[in-house]
């Protein structure tokens, strides 16, 4: 196979390409969902294919095809798709401003990475997985007033080979495990939801089945269901400006939307104008703009163990790295690629990923983390005279510059004189990104810090759904507008 791939890459050079890479990807997914005591879905899937990206006459071309079999057919198909990529690049070259230039990242000629896994989730019997979910589901249904219960497990394995005309050869095996439970309570015209350990069908990590066992889903089930029911009779979250403490699970999505996306350099340069939008963090603001308060330090770190954005090498063959996006409040870095990094005088920090063999790599978040502070959550609450505590995302929206955001959470508690008080339903909060982060005056310490996995980060056309993560602990923000509802 290696010879076939290298032969076709050489053929691309012979045809006039100045750069080319091949990604051969195999993905395996298992998904189980139980619903109201029944098995709603058990499914598995396997996908195999390759994508070829190349530069011809200074412009990009990309072509891909699914893969069946190997040997002679494989090489022929590879060659055919490579020629398609050349013809696509020729079409691109008709409408270019200047030639694409890549940075000088040296090729990794013999790279290997494997997610550290204790218990291969694909080897755990389906019966065991079902028993876990059905037990949790039954415990949720024991709580009176619950209308719909749901639990799911989701496992993902990706094996990929990256090779380039520069001589790169990298093999990686990535494994992700995730799952969670959810209870929905309905009364009249009200519906309330509670999830554990997070919304979006739970939490995910680059770990094996040991990650699922640690969740203790059956033990948490009665609490989750009881909270959903309690929310039906809770007071509506008041509309006011107050101090807001966000739990780590909600803060993860806040980081995602208001720091992760706006620091993607391709977005800043306009490549997503027609779809998801651009970014307020324009080039003139780099090292020249206070994104947040001095407490706020945000990193992009693909070297963390356990995050969905953890890997050995990105999909351009660049080694995983840790870099600063915001340092003590100052905006100091973007997430970059080999094409975009030279525009700001840098080398790629390794953020290019594609969600499959049939998609072009884009700048995608790795593990984007709010670095921990030195407060405990209890101290933070005790230090708050009047405020609100919100937990677990329910809705999220942000504008096309990543400035105006509005989030809703599943649950909130009043904070009065340093203690948690009344339960509120339908909590929401809104703000403008830099104003919000500049109002951050306290961040919880590493004991409260956790990496949260998200599997539904959308970007690009055709749409790609990326697996990313965010390390976060609870944090406090001053004078935030809450309770937007109509």
């Amino acid at each position: 196979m290696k010879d076939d791939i290298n032969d076709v890459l050489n053929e691309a050079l012979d045809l006039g390409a100045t750069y080319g890479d091949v990604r051969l990807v195999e993905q395996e997914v298992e998904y189980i969902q139980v619903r109201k005591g029944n098995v709603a879905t058990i499914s598995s899937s396997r996908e195999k294919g390759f994508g070829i990206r190349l530069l011809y006459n200074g412009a990009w071309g990309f072509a891909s095809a699914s893969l069946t079999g190997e040997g002679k057919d494989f090489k022929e198909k590879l060659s055919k798709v490579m020629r398609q990529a050349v013809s696509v690049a020729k079409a691109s070259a008709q409408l270019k401003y200047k030639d694409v230039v890549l940075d000088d990242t040296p090729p990794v000629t013999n790279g290997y990475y494997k997610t550290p896994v204790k218990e291969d989730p694909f080897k755990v019997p389906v019966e065991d997985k079902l028993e876990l979910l059905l037990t949790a589901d039954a415990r949720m249904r024991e709580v009176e007033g619950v209308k719909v219960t749901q639990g799911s497990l989701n496992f993902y394995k990706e094996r990929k080979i990256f090779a380039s005309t520069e001589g790169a050869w990298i093999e990686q095996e990535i494994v992700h495990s995730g799952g969670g439970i959810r209870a929905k309570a309905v009364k009249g015209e009200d519906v309330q939801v509670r999830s554990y350990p997070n919304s979006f069908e739970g939490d995910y990590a680059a770990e094996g089945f040991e990650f699922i066992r640690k969740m203790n889903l059956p033990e948490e089930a009665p609490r989750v269901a009881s909270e959903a029911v309690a929310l039906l009779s809770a007071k509506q979250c008041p509309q006011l400006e107050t101090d807001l403490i966000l739990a780590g699970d909600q803060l993860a999505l806040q980081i995602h939307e208001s720091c992760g996306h706006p620091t993607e350099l391709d977005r800043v340069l306009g490549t997503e104008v027609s779809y998801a939008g651009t970014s307020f963090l324009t080039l003139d603001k780099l090292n020249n703009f206070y994104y947040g308060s001095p407490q706020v330090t945000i990193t992009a770190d693909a070297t963390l163990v356990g995050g969905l954005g953890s890997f050995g090498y990105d999909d351009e063959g660049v080694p995983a790295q840790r870099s600063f996006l915001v340092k003590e409040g100052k905006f100091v870095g973007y997430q970059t690629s080999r094409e975009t990094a030279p525009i700001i005088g840098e080398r790629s920090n390794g953020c290019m990923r594609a969600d499959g063999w049939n998609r072009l790599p884009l700048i995608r978040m790795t593990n984007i983390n709010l670095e921990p502070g030195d407060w405990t959550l209890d101290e933070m609450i005790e230090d708050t005279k009047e405020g609100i505590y919100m937990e677990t995302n329910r809705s999220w929206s942000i504008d096309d510059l990543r400035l105006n955001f509005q989030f809703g959470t599943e649950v909130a508690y009043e904070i009065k004189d340093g203690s948690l008080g009344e339960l509120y339903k339908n909590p929401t909060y809104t703000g403008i990104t830099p104003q919000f982060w500049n109002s951050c005056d306290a961040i919880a310490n590493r004991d409260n810090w956790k990496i949260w996995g998200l599997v539904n980060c959308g970007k690009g056309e055709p749409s790609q759904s990326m697996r990313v993560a965010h390390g976060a602990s609870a944090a406090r923000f001053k004078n935030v507008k809450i309770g937007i509802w109509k």
Partner: protein
Amino acid sequence: MLGQEKALSLLEKALNFSNSLQTEALYIGKQESLTRYTNSVVHQNVIEENTILSIRAVNEGRVGCDMTNSLDERSIKESVEKANIVSKVQPQEVEFYSLPPPAPYKPLEIFVEATAEYSPEDKARDIGIIIRIAERAGVKAAGAFSTINQEIAIASTLGVRAYCKFTTAFLSNIMFDEESSGYADRISRDVRELNPQAVAWEALQRCLENREAKELSPGEYEVVLEEYAVADLIEYLAFMGFSALSFQEGYSFMSGNIGKELVDKKITIWDDGLDIRGLAQPFDYEGVPKRKVELITEGVAKGVVYNSQTAFKEWKLSTGHALPAPNVYGPLPLNLFVKGGDTTEEEMISQVERGLLITRFHYIREMHTLKTLITGMTRDGVIYIENGKKKYPVKNMRFTQSILEALKDVRGISRDTKLQSSPEGFGCAVVPKMHLGRFNFTGISKL
């Protein structure tokens, strides 16, 4: 692309490998070519060829699904066996009655050779037209141009045999500069109907109209919504309430409300997968023929859409709205229509006392499904209207609004309708423009 004979023969092979009580095999073949442009250059240009074989095995009410994109005999057999095994390991009978029986469907002319053969060079030529218009006007152009050839085949041990192939062409364009932007798009089965020049001029006009935008205080305003914005709202409404799954489980606004007046009498919404004014398709992903379903007629809740599972629960017939298995959303209406009215955009604007003309919305998310409460932003063109006249463009605003509440005060609906398939939405919708009496804006976008 395999063609009808080879596709159905592949599925026969899969069914022959199965020893489950019931088995369904779904094949999807797809070729997609997409060119993206921004800052007036092509920056991403891709082509893709893929196949999916999905097996659903049913054993005593227990269902197992497996998917592969490898179509060699070994992979097909492995997929059938996996579906069979996972269906049998389940500890108890689930609420699954049966795969649907075969039913005749009406073939539709939805494959257009011109679309299937449209090359990246053809797209570059059309994008060049858009870019030249942008350059002459001193703005930049961005967007995407895609063509898709797709085929679907379904076979089951109950005798279902269904095949169709179709094409889709989509062109979007944003004209923009430092202070302004305007949007336009077209979608069709036939690439020749996209008219890049018209798309460019439409977006450019909005971009030029949107310059020197002012801030407007949040609050309640009348709105005149372009088709893009109407489609966003209707597709979200459909997602939140027109599925039999949410209806049966009690978290749809339609639950318990059939026959009741929910919105203004001017509002009539239906789904019709056979109407070629939309992106028609003869059958759903279970091979059940598409049926027209009245959802809201003259303001009154009429019904929801069903797949075979939700239909069996109420001893009804499936309306042909199944998504590919496995899916957790239940059936969805993907071919929505909103009845046109008797007015025009100009006439609607002339009736506005104090309101906004809105091109489209951005990043809509549901906040409360039963109340149909959503939030989102305006994007690519918002104009303030006072006493029947357009006054000045305004900066993007956040809204927080119940869709059903907004549709209770409909002051005008345009005669003409347009086919939309929104990146924010699900499926497609043929919709008019609308003048709504009250829409709640809760914030503005500014640094």
